[in-house]
């Protein structure tokens, strides 16, 4: 229930597909939330979900869906909190049906579960469609396309809320739109009120990554310390009718909400701060005011907006075969020299004996790995790990790479140990733009 008539309380209960669950349950129980949003989809996640669905038509939604619903549905019903999520991923219909099953098993009879479909535009897009941000067209893709999903905006979500849904499940619902839609519904913001839409989009953007605004992904010991990060709480936004908001969190949770945590999130994955494109609005964050108004309370205001884009962004998921990774560790005197020798041997053997040279990378963790291409050599550890990565469409090549790395245990430098190797599916993604009129979202409500 709202604290006051015109302050709307939205919490985040997941900021990515594998985010924590128990703090979300705590948030619903103690947060007096109007809405809980679980944002669980990225470019990679939806491509992998399509792969899952191809393997089993009953799957293709978030792997933690049932577990999350079991824990959150009773709490949401008790608190009168509406849940909005994109956990449906590549199969929102199946996700809604599973949620319905869970609700029935829990005795939550009458729970209304809205399923939003229409983001899968695979059948609607021509092969001559150009890529959004690189040369070429869909016709240039020489691997199987797994799926194509348009980012749906608040206009796809509002009908579900207006229809009295307790739970709203979709696939590629745009992250900030899941926050903006209930705000439009509650505060009566109209689709042409671009300044309100910009303000609501700011709230959504700040909230969509969950704990990244309450001290998660922020700590740098000794420089930026965060209290009790282990028990970090998810964020709450108290949003006024004018679109200004206070970002906060529950008392007796870890983490912190400060101007600094809000600033880092303000431009997270934003390019031009004056032009942040969403399906709903061209948001302008360039004049946003950020003000600390109490312990773990930061007020944000003055986001603006301009006309929404005429096109919708579409993520195209492509089957890229396999990612093979393998490693061996070296420690003690001259560990880095031995590790480097191991890497040279593997590189030469893969090329000479197996003809594998491209899409291959050899790193030495502890000496040069993450920053290797950046050319920043770090001081070398005497505890290093050779890491070999190969992307290939040929399973046999993936297995050969693992074999070569493992063979170092007898044929490589002295003292190597701890071989591990894995082969996992690989996907790539491309982006295209489609005309808005082509995409027709739908909403169906299931009753438990």
């Amino acid at each position, binding site marked *: 229930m709202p604290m006051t008539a015109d302050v709307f309380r939205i919490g985040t209960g997941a900021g990515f597909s594998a985010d924590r669950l128990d703090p979300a349950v705590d948030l619903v129980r103690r947060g007096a939330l109007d809405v809980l949003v679980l944002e669980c989809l990225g470019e990679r996640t939806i491509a992998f979900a399509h792969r899952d669905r191809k393997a089993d038509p009953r799957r293709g939604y978030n792997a933690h869906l049932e577990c999350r619903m079991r824990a959150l549905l009773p709490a949401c019903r008790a608190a009168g909190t509406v849940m909005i999520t994109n956990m449906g991923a590549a199969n929102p219909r199946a996700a809604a049906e599973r949620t319905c099953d869970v609700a029935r098993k829990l005795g939550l009879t009458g729970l209304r579960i809205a399923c939003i479909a229409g983001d899968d535009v695979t059948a609607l897009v021509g092969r001559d469609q150009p890529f959004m941000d690189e040369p070429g067209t869909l016709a240039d893709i020489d691997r199987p396309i797994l799926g194509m999903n348009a980012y749906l905006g608040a206009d796809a979500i509002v009908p579900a809320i207006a229809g009295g849904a307790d739970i709203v499940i979709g696939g590629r619902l745009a992250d900030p739109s899941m926050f903006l839609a209930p705000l439009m519904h509650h505060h009566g913001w109209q689709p042409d009120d671009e300044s309100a839409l910009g303000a609501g989009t700011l709230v959504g953007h700040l909230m969509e990554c969950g704990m990244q605004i309450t001290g998660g992904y922020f700590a740098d010991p000794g420089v930026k310390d965060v209290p009790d990060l282990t028990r970090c709480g998810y964020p709450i936004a108290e949003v006024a009718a004018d679109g200004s908001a206070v970002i906060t969190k529950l008392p007796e949770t870890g983490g912190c909400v400060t101007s600094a945590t809000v600033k880092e999130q303000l431009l997270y*994955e934003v390019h031009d701060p004056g032009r942040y494109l969403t399906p709903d609005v061209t948001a302008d964050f360039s004049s946003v005011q950020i003000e600390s108004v109490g312990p773990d309370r930061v007020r944000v205001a003055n986001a603006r907006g301009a006309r929404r884009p005429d096109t919708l962004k579409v993520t195209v998921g492509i089957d890229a075969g396999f990612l093979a990774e393998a490693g061996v560790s070296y420690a003690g005197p001259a560990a880095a020299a031995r590790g480097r020798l191991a890497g040279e041997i593997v590189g030469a053997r893969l090329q000479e004996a197996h003809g594998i040279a491209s899409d*291959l990378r050899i790193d030495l963790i502890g000496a040069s790995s993450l920053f290797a291409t950046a050319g920043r050599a770090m001081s070398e550890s005497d505890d290093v790990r050779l890491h070999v990565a190969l992307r290939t469409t040929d399973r046999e090549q993936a297995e050969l790479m693992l074999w070569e790395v493992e063979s170092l245990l007898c044929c490589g430098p002295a003292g190597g140990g701890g071989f591990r190797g894995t082969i996992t599916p690989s996907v790539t*993604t491309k982006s295209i733009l489609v005309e808005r009129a082509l995409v027709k979202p739908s909403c169906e409500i299931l009753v438990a």
Partner: protein
Amino acid sequence: MSAERPNAPVWVRDIAHARAGDKGNTSNINVWVYDPADFALLKSSLTAERIKREFPQLVRGEVRRYVIEHLHGLNFVLSDALEGGVNASLNLDSHGKSWSFLILGLRIDSAGS
């Protein structure tokens, strides 16, 4: 530099904090000073040209810098700077999440060189 500081800052990390994110093969890194008094130093030290020059192998496209004057922050947009992007890169950190510490690990240089 402020006179009361016991030691002059050497690294960007001494005066600023940062976060990196990815979209496709483009990385963006936002950088904020702790003390507004250091913002002029940050601006002169971290120019778009310098970021491009510091990481020639990594940053294959252009670097754009946006200045958020009233919040004392900079936003760098590095195109073609993620070794192909999250789905194609064979870097262990295929999102380039650690790129924030590439910037924080630079020396402060008021000449921006």
